[in-house]
């Protein structure tokens, strides 16, 4: 028994260690060595390493019933991981691997040992940190459920606040900023206060939710009044962004908006109708290029239409493109559909890039001098002003999505998603239902593309690579396919956050890959699951539980 438990703890420790090796050698961990979160010592790199150690301890401890077992095995796991870190530091210091592995630098060894270096001092430091992380995570897993969650959430909140110092610092009142933040990252006192505040908030939220059933019945304000009030407040906050956000932040907000629009569009196709479209960027490109060709004096027939005239044309063109893509792929099954749409996306990009169409679409250099919108004498020029346009578009798309979801068409999409054949047998016309998903979904992408082209003022083929499609799929998966709030959360996390952290840019796609796999493995319904989908998944789990004993009986596991 003990041998088995020890073996398991060591195994999990080794796995976490290998993950740390991977992140280190890929360069993610050393990249954040200068990003201080709390005080002068806790950098983002260290936070990542500690998180890995704690995760190992937590994953090990979780398997045991009581604290007496959880904590020691958790610590063993974390210690094994720290040893792995030390081993990598040793290797990096004493072997010259830089010829092959770019990131195997002495700097990496220093980061891995928390500044101690690949020596006895470093080893002691690492083991100590492993011990503490193990103790912390083991203890956490031993606490009653909500408490562990509150502590972890509060800690994450604190780290996030530290991470966003450069962004939040200028926005907050001077007094708050100078108290919260030091020369880099949170000050120590600021960190403690943030943590405590966040802990109180999360506790409150949790206890509110626990009493939600009784609260709902006795609430002084009925939900029909409360909800519009909350919505109005939210809207007010959203609309006020240009007032307090600077140029940079508005720009980021605009880009998040473009991705929310695309996310909402793909959500109709992938989330509602269950059709994986890996060429969604094609619609973004069609929207952007229609806007470019119609308003820029550089290419094609040298039209110089007004933005407001070009915008509806761009959207209509994308709807047609959606139909054009949708028609041939109507009969395809899941994986073929994904590849065929990917093919369409690439064909669009390659055609735009080619010299053949250069006179019309600008070739590799793209098109510049795209029109900006203006209303009467007000020229919408800066990202701050543009934000309002993006916000209105997103709200419109959101409203449309909600209405569609609750409409007959939306129900038909769900039916197709669950089982195409049964849906057809129930009298759903597959052709019109699928085509409408493609067309309406495409129109959101086209709108996004047209706005993007106008804001940036130029389009180049490089902006329309496969990576955009993957980005949109990843944000849907993170938020939860089919869930509308999930789209917003996904876009904020996968588009907004990387824009704010410049070191992160290079590792964006690596992280998308990890997100796609990890979400499917551990939380397939996403962070904010859609109601219907969640219910189905729960049913599936129930069924699996009923089947499982039978499988064990036949000896297959």
């Amino acid at each position: 028994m003990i041998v088995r438990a020890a073996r398991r703890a060591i195994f999990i420790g080794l796995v976490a260690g290998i993950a740390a090796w991977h992140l280190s050698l890929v360069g993610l961990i050393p990249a954040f060595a200068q990003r201080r979160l709390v005080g002068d010592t806790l950098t983002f790199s260290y936070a990542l390493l500690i998180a890995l150690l704690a995760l190992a301890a937590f994953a090990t401890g979780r398997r045991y019933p009581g604290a007496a077992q959880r904590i020691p095995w958790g610590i063993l796991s974390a210690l094994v991981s720290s040893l792995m870190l030390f081993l990598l530091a040793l290797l990096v210091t004493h072997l010259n691997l830089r010829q092959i592995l770019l990131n195997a630098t002495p700097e990496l060894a220093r980061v891995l040992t928390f500044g101690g270096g690949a020596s006895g001092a470093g080893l002691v430091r690492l083991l100590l940190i492993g011990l503490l992380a193990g103790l912390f995570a083991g203890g956490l897993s031993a606490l009653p459920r909500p408490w562990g969650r509150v502590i972890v959430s509060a800690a994450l909140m604190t780290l996030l606040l530290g991470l966003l110092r450069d962004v939040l610092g200028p926005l907050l009142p001077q007094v708050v900023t100078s108290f919260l933040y030091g020369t880099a990252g949170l000050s120590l006192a600021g960190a403690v206060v943030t943590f405590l505040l966040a802990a109180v908030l999360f506790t409150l939220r949790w206890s509110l939710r626990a009493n939600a059933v009784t609260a709902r019945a006795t609430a002084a304000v009925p939900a029909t009044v409360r909800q519009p009030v909350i919505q109005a407040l939210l809207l007010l906050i959203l609309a006020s962004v240009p007032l307090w956000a600077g140029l940079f932040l508005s720009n980021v907000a605009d880009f998040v908006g473009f991705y929310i629009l695309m996310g909402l569009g793909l959500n109709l196709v992938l989330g509602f109708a269950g059709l994986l479209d890996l060429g969604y960027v094609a619609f973004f490109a069609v929207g952007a290029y229609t806007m470019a060709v119609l308003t820029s004096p550089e290419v094609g027939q040298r039209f110089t239409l007004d933005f407001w005239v070009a915008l509806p044309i761009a959207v209509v063109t994308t709807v047609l493109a959606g139909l054009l893509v949708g028609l041939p792929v109507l009969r395809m099954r899941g994986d073929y559909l994904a590849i065929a749409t990917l093919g369409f996306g690439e064909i669009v990009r390659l055609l735009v890039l080619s010299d053949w169409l250069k006179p019309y679409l600008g070739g590799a250099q793209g098109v510049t001098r795209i029109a900006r919108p203006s209303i009467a004498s007000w020229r919408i020029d800066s990202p701050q002003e543009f934000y309002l346009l993006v916000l209105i578009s997103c709200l419109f798309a959101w409203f449309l999505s909600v209405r569609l979801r609750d409409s007959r068409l939306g129900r038909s999409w769900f039916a197709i998603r669950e089982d195409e054949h049964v849906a057809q047998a129930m009298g759903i016309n597959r052709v019109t239902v699928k085509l409408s998903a493609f067309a309406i979904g495409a129109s959101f992408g086209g709108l996004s593309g047209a706005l993007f082209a106008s804001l940036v003022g130029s389009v180049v083929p490089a902006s329309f690579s496969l990576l955009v499609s993957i980005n949109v799929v990843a944000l849907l998966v993170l938020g939860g396919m089919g869930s509308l709030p999930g789209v917003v959360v996904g876009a904020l996390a996968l588009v907004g956050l990387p824009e704010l952290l410049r070191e992160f840019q290079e590792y964006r796609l690596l992280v998308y890959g990890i997100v796609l796999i990890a979400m499917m493995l551990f939380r397939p319904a996403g962070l904010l699951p859609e109601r219907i989908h969640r219910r189905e998944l729960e049913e599936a789990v129930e069924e699996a539980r009923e089947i499982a004993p039978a499988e064990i009986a036949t000896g297959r596991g």
Partner: protein
Amino acid sequence: MTIAAPRRFTGGRRIDISQLIVWAIGGILLAIVLLGSILTLRAGHYTAAQWRDFVVFGIAQGAIYALIALGYTMVYGVLRMINFAHGEVFMSGAMTTFFLADYLNRSGFLKAHPWISLVAMLLFSGLVSMTVAVLVERIAYRPLRGAPRLVPLITAVGASFFLQYTFRGLFGSGVRAYPAIPVLQGKLWVFQKTQVAVFIGVLITLALLVLFLQRTRAGLAIRAVAEDREAAALMGVDVDRAIVTTFAVGGFMAGIAGVLYALVFVQVQFFMGFLPGIKAFTAAVLGGIGNLPGAAVGGLVLGVIESIGPSLFFDGYGIRAAHQLKDVIAFTILVLILIFRPTGLLGERLGGEERV
């Protein structure tokens, strides 16, 4: 044992408008291609020797696609899923082996014993790709077997990007050039010597694959699982093991294809797996997915079309820089074959299980 193909719910013989439009688009494309070919041939810009060179290059390229396509087709055969990350499996072997090749070159071993070096490179690359393929199966696919179809597809896309950017992070984003192998320089009759090496390499690998599948117990297990997974399990075949073997064999061949690719195209980089991956998939579908000879034929056909296509189809129209449209041709073939003949040229070889 051929049963009438299960009729799908496509509305029987009735033809709806959407289908008519699709056929019309197909017809127009065919007309464009035919007219272009006739115009090009009448204009006579290219000599016979040039066409021959195009075809030879196309066959070499196609042979590499075929090798990668076998990995797609085998995995599809046993799991009914597209291993989206297979292109990256191919890349991982080629990228890693660059360092071995570079080392051999600098130590002078490559010049002294070119054949031993070449075999060592092929084996090394095969082993690296095999490891990557098995890890991908273990981490991204196996825990999700039995989940809805969309789920492993998404993890596959994730695995693909994870691998690409892992290799970019490890080795950098620059382009690396394989060292030239002196014995493979120059021409042998009309062929480049590297092309001959590619043909021979592909033929040997294919022969070994056939031997493996037909003559070993592991090969038998793979075939049994491809035929009917549940029945195979009931007969005592270790299904998990057969699936891992499939990934391992497919990965090994992708690794070999990686080195052969580097012999012909010289340069490797982290993004190199994407296009060959998609094209090999196209080849697999072209030949009929799940069908091993089909993958080989599909690879060759695709390679040749891609090589002669831009000149043959587009030159007649006087399109500038027609070679830029090479990949457009490949992707168009992909889309067309998926639309008009998803069972491929030689037909799908799947077990009795009904396709959905």
